[in-house]
């Protein structure tokens, strides 16, 4: 990712320009409104709103990861929240170990739920998770390894289309069931929660949340640039060729499965990072994050925003989630109707999503 790539991007791609500009503005304005503007003012942004925005941006990163494989390579994953949740669990384990003696049972090593289950020592996979670098390594490694194993099997045996979609769904469903079990050692039904601090910063404090928001903005921007770099590269061209005609790409001589595999693993890593940023802001990770319906919702964000554009996916994630927050509070009955109608409406009427609609309008004007 050299300078010329970014400057070229800024010159030629108005969508990227707008997207990165919006992120920059958010990074400047949100802390200002939250920390500098006094609490009584009408312009003051409460901390919960900062957290909410941070959550949307985590979802946006996840949506970009899904768009990368779906929009550019035609792999419709209905199980991407599995990677998201794995990253989240790795972060959650670190935060859990940071609680130390401040837990309900005050055990210096064991998290509360293990004391409650009468466990005497840490399971092997919890060792080292009290060290931040190890935990961050796991945030990347856990989703990457799962994606590699799954992708290696699936792409090599040429499982494609709806079959692949369904087994990704089976994957996340199996993980959902597994993480519900207390014996797995991840807190079972309740998951991991009651976090105290991250790298010494108090998670109850508003300023920590602003900091996390800024890190999320940065991660989203970097993730976006990385994805843009990949799709603009030669690698990206091959990926698009695979999407449009897999057999032809193979006959020309490209090793289709390894192209798919690396793109898939990269996408899983991005999802894992999104999950890791999500957990300290929300304050809990539980097996519900693995639910297949969540993964399908992610696909809808991408479809609403416009697949194969990256920034469209991020836009869709923020818009749909804002609508969800608003509707589930104001008109809880209506939310599922709205989401369902969104699915049908977007696929029937807006196959290119909002971004596609805007492009159409612009080309009509000119």
């Amino acid at each position, binding site marked *: 990712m050299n300078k010329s790539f970014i400057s070229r991007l800024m010159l030629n791609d108005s969508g990227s320009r707008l997207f990165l500009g919006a992120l920059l503005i958010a990074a400047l304005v949100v802390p200002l409104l939250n920390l500098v503007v006094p609490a009584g003012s009408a312009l003051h942004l409460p901390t919960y709103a900062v957290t909410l925005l941070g959550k949307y941006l985590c979802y946006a990163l996840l949506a970009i990861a899904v768009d990368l494989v779906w929009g550019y390579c035609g792999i419709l994953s209905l199980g991407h929240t599995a990677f998201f949740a794995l990253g989240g669990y790795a972060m959650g384990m670190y935060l859990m170990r940071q609680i130390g003696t401040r837990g309900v049972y005050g055990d210096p090593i064991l998290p509360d739920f293990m004391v409650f289950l009468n466990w005497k020592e840490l399971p092997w996979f919890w060792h080292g998770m009290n060290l931040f670098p190890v935990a961050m390594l796991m945030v990347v490694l856990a989703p990457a390894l799962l994606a590699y194993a799954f992708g290696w099997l699936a792409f090599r045996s040429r499982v494609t289309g709806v079959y692949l979609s369904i087994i990704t769904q089976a994957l996340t469903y199996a993980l959902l069931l597994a993480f519900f079990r207390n014996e797995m050692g991840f807190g079972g039904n309740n998951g991991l929660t009651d976090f105290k601090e991250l790298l010494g910063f108090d998670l109850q404090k508003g300023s920590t949340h602003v900091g996390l928001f800024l890190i999320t903005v940065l991660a989203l921007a970097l993730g976006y640039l990385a994805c843009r770099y990949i799709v603009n590269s030669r690698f990206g061209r091959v990926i698009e060729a695979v999407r449009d005609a897999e057999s032809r790409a193979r006959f020309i001589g490209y090793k289709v499965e390894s192209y798919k595999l690396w793109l898939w693993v990269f996408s899983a890593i991005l999802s894992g990072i999104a999950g890791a940023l999500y957990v300290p802001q929300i304050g809990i990770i539980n097996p519900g994050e693995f639910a297949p319906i969540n993964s399908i919702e992610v696909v809808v964000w991408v479809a609403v925003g416009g697949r194969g554009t990256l920034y469209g996916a991020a836009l869709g994630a923020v818009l749909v989630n804002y609508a969800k927050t608003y509707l589930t509070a104001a008109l809880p009955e209506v939310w599922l109707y709205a989401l369902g109608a969104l699915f049908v409406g977007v*696929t029937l009427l807006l196959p290119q999503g909002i971004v596609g609609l805007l492009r159409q309008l612009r080309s009509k004007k000119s």
Partner: protein
Amino acid sequence: MTDLLQVAVLTPGATTPGVFLGGRGWRRWVVLLATVLLVTVNVPAWAQDTAADETPAATGGAPAAAPADFATLVDSLVDAGYADKDHIAGEIVESGNPRARIVLQALLDGKLYADGNKQVYIVGDAPDDASELPVSDAVSGDAHAPVAADQLDRIGTNNGLRKGLKGLIAQLKLNDPDAGVRQRAVKEMLRDLDESTIAALRARRAHEDNARVLAKIDVGLALGDLESSDVATQLSAANSLYGELDDDVYNRLKPLADAGDGDPRVRAAASKAVKHIEFWREIYDGLQTLFFGLSLGSVLVLSAIGLAITFGVMGVINMAHGELMMLGAYTAYVMQLLMPNHLALSLLLSIPAAFVVSGLMGVAIERGVVRFLYGRPLETLLATFGLSLVLQQLVRSIFSPLNRSVATPEFMSGVWQLNDLFALTWNRLYIVVFALIVFAVLQLVLKRTSLGLKVRAVSMNRAMARAMGVRSQWVDAATFGLGSGIAGIAGVALSQLTNVGPNLGQSYIIDSFMVVVFGGVGNLWGTLISGMSLGVASKLLEPWAGAVMAKIFVLVFLILFIQRRPRGLFPQKGRAAEG
């Protein structure tokens, strides 16, 4: 002796042993003769018993007087002391009134109450803090207006009285004209045998003519003989118990076989019988697991088979399939609300009703959404998923988000007890049969009708079928309707197994997809085999892995299986399948 029993049953008021024995003069002598021939042991006890039995027969010559007697006896329970109650209970038995057992059972269960006017009632089920209790008249059994709880006093019992009551009730049951009641009574008595119950069994054995009841009584007597101090009696009892599968026999023989002391021959006989039971237990446990697996498999087949058709013919993933099942289940619920007094009929009628409701909904989905998305399977998947959310919320708005339960009609509830170790629940058995019928009908439709021919043609090669004059659009709509209608029927079946709620479909959708993908798309036999084998496999894994782990194993197995055979167990043949 068979005709004797029949006569006794036909005789009015023939429910007591007295009338049974004394009803017709010459037959009584036959019975006595038979008794002497049959019962060679413990003659004095038997003789005593017959004598006791004769008394009510003599006095009960006027059956019309019996109810009045019975009413006085029941009323006299109110003020009697415990010892008197014991005595009165005995007289109630002798009164020969058909309600004697019900009243005594109520007394034993603490459900017999009296109000201020000494009127005796049997109280029905009510919450603990209810101010009014539902009651029925103890003597006549007629329902009565609810009575305020503070006006009623329970007719108390103590330990001694309860023991006596149990014996009397057992005696009444042992002499019930219904062989099934007698058999259950003996089985209950096997659980705790003592001298009085053994005596009652011995008494009954003499004039029992039902082979099954007789066999059970013999088991009871042999169990009693095991306690004997005489080694020969013990040995012959242990030997005669070989081949029995009853749990109570096992529980009595097991300590005998394990005991260090005692006669080695008795021990050997006991352990032989125990090993026999253990062997059969394993066999029947295996059969039981197989049956559970098949019934789970039938549910899977029912839920997947409609999907197999739509997916196979149109290559369309219908994520709303689960919700179409849910609609079927709610149809069964609504039918039951419409005719609450005819459970069986409403269930039978809800099968075609659910087919129509879900089928029409399926056609609407196909015409309204799916047909615009042909050739874009991933978009179809998303759009139908959206529809599934809408349908769920629709049901939530109409019927409330709470789960509803659909009552099971009589012929489907209960168990079919094949022997002491093996029982099949009727509802699961019916589901297995039902799944096979649906499968057979569907197979007939696809293989023997013109619609089926067209459906198969389109699924093999759409373009060629169109060229031959098949209206593929019409076939698509009909196929979608057919698959959806079958989902509705599956929903009716599910309503008999679980509660009906808005999330019913969601919990089956992944499983159904797995079945279709495992079996091979567009192949009904594949769906049948894959559904059944997945069902059996999950149930086989469950005992040692637990239900959740079993499910995870099956999912992981399927993920790996698809790598090996991306087109399922039975891939569809034909050029179009390669596309």
